[in-house]
């Protein structure tokens, strides 16, 4: 039994079936992200865990106890909102101490815990300020401290970084992860930003249309997507429609170019499947077991990485190479051999 179990959750709003048979088991201290486009149901899952929405069917177990039916204020869960949701009439210290205060804790106890929390988020001097006197990043840190002050069993983060500037988003992301690991608190993080989800999480749940498409570590999600949606939503992806000529050895036709993957494909001969490949998997030059000739269409200099677009017949391929000072990028219009390691070509049947 896991620490937090979400079993067969279903939720409909009127005719909209927003969450469909959602299952997720989270271990104690784990950081799990729900990743997906807006409207995929990720926020609804989070709100069901918090108790703001009641699932139509299914169970939410925290260390074995079913939470469905209990009110949010009885669940002992911490939550951070996208819009900070700090109480504007209370100081930073009063905000952080709110949960302890409504629980009837002693003043001295509250003060001690508040000081500890403000220290944790690095805002020890700002306890007397009001929220409107803080920057967005500071407000969100206070919101985090407020959620953690009551020592919740589970921490829920609902797009906490979306309202912030790009730079603060990066630092706060690292900070959230560091605090989470230090406290060892079980955390669910909702985001639509795939880079955010991959960089911060132990595991990622990619959601689409109310379904969990894939659950896995960032490494698995990125390198071995199991559905086309996951592959396309996470990272940049090259996809090629190919026709299977021999499923047993993995022979396919890309336009008029034959390719052999040397492994079986779970499809009939003559079926159309999709080959997917990350830009960094391909490389310029003849290295691997499979080389194609491409005509360089575009070169984008991105600093440490150079992104190249090449035409292979009627298909387009995007590939990333590291920038090396001793190797200038190929000229546009030149014909160059491009190596595709067959192991990095993912076959997506559906």
């Amino acid at each position, binding site marked *: 039994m896991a620490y937090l179990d979400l079993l067969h959750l279903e939720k409909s709003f009127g005719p909209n079936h927003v969450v469909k048979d959602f299952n997720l088991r989270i271990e104690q201290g784990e950081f799990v992200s729900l990743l997906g486009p807006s409207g995929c149901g990720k926020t609804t899952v989070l709100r069901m865990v918090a108790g703001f929405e009641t699932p139509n069917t299914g169970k939410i177990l925290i260390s074995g106890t079913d939470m469905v039916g209990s009110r*949010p204020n009885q669940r002992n869960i911490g939550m951070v909102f996208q819009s900070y949701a700090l*109480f*504007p*009439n209370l100081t930073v210290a009063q905000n952080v101490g709110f*949960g302890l205060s*409504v629980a009837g804790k002693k003043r001295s106890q509250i003060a001690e815990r508040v000081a500890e929390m403000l220290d944790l988020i690095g805002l020890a001097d700002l306890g007397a300020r009001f929220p*409107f006197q803080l920057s967005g990043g500071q407000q969100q840190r206070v919101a985090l401290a407020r*959620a953690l002050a009551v020592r919740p069993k589970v921490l829920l983060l609902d797009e906490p970084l979306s309202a912030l500037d790009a730079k603060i988003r990066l630092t706060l992301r690292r900070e959230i992860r560091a605090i989470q690991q230090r406290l060892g608190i079980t955390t669910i993080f909702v985001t639509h930003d795939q880079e955010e989800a991959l960089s911060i999480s132990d595991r990622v749940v990619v959601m689409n249309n109310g379904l969990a498409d894939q659950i896995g570590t960032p490494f698995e999600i990125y390198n071995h997507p199991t559905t086309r949606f996951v592959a396309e939503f996470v990272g940049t992806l090259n996809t090629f429609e190919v026709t299977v000529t021999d499923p047993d050895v993995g022979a396919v036709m890309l336009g008029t170019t034959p390719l052999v993957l040397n492994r079986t494909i779970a499809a009939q001969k003559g079926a159309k499947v999709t080959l997917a490949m990350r830009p960094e998997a391909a490389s310029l030059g003849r290295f691997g077991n499979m080389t194609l000739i491409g005509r360089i269409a575009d070169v984008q200099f991105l600093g440490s990485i150079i992104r190249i677009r090449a035409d292979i017949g009627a298909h387009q391929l995007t590939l990333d190479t590291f920038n090396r000072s001793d190797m200038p990028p190929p000229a546009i219009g030149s014909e160059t051999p491009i190596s595709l390691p067959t192991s990095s070509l993912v076959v997506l049947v559906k």
Partner: protein
Amino acid sequence: MNWLGLVPFAIFSLLFLLLPTFNIVLGAFRTQQGAATLDNVMNLAQPRIAIAFWVSIKLSFASALIGCLLGFILATTVALGGLPRWLRQSTLTFSGVASNFAGVPLSFAFIATLGRVGILTIVIREVFGINLYGLGFNLLSFWGLVLVYLYFQIPLMILIITPALDGLRREWREAAEILGATGFQYWRRVALPILWPPTLGTMALLFANSFGAIATAVALTGSQLSIAPIVLFNQIRGDVLQDPQLGYAIAFGMIVITGITNLIYIVMRVRSERWLK
């Protein structure tokens, strides 16, 4: 050159707003011969005037307080009570009408309803066997006047406080709830403190609103009621106080009181806007 654009407005407001008021304020500190004096203002303390001011203040305070309270309850019910959306829009529209339906016609409506031969008085007597006037109720009394004033005070409160209620964000409630607060704790520690400044500010506005009101009271009681604006009104018409300078002092006193209440309103508005930025 830019200043030229303000000249028409400056002349108009000087001539028809600032100078007339200034003239009154100045008069309050002058004898009839034009010498400086504090006697006029001191004379406000004479029982007849002081009582009129006191009744005015009580009347305005009672109607503002009750209007504020009931308006708040109604606005909260309409905004957060789970009523259908069209009810809310119609309430706001009706409030716009009712807050402007003051003065003489309003008192007619109440006389026709709760006067000695008003329909409600008759219905209550015939159907329930209760004689309102026999029980001491009188529309032409202090509380009768409060009842009438509420007809424009409550809608004004609804109009001003509804945006503040809309400003209460759902996340605040949810954040409080998930931190363990009950609904009551949320209202006491978060919602009410946030709504307090705009409520107090609106109450000051309601106070000033009824303090200057005169037509409703005149139409109801025939200018016999001794409240500050009516005393001043009668003084202007016929110098009933036998002291023309006292009129200036009364007017000055009224400006001071409405000025203070408006100051409260402005301070409170600034405070609540600062929070909800």
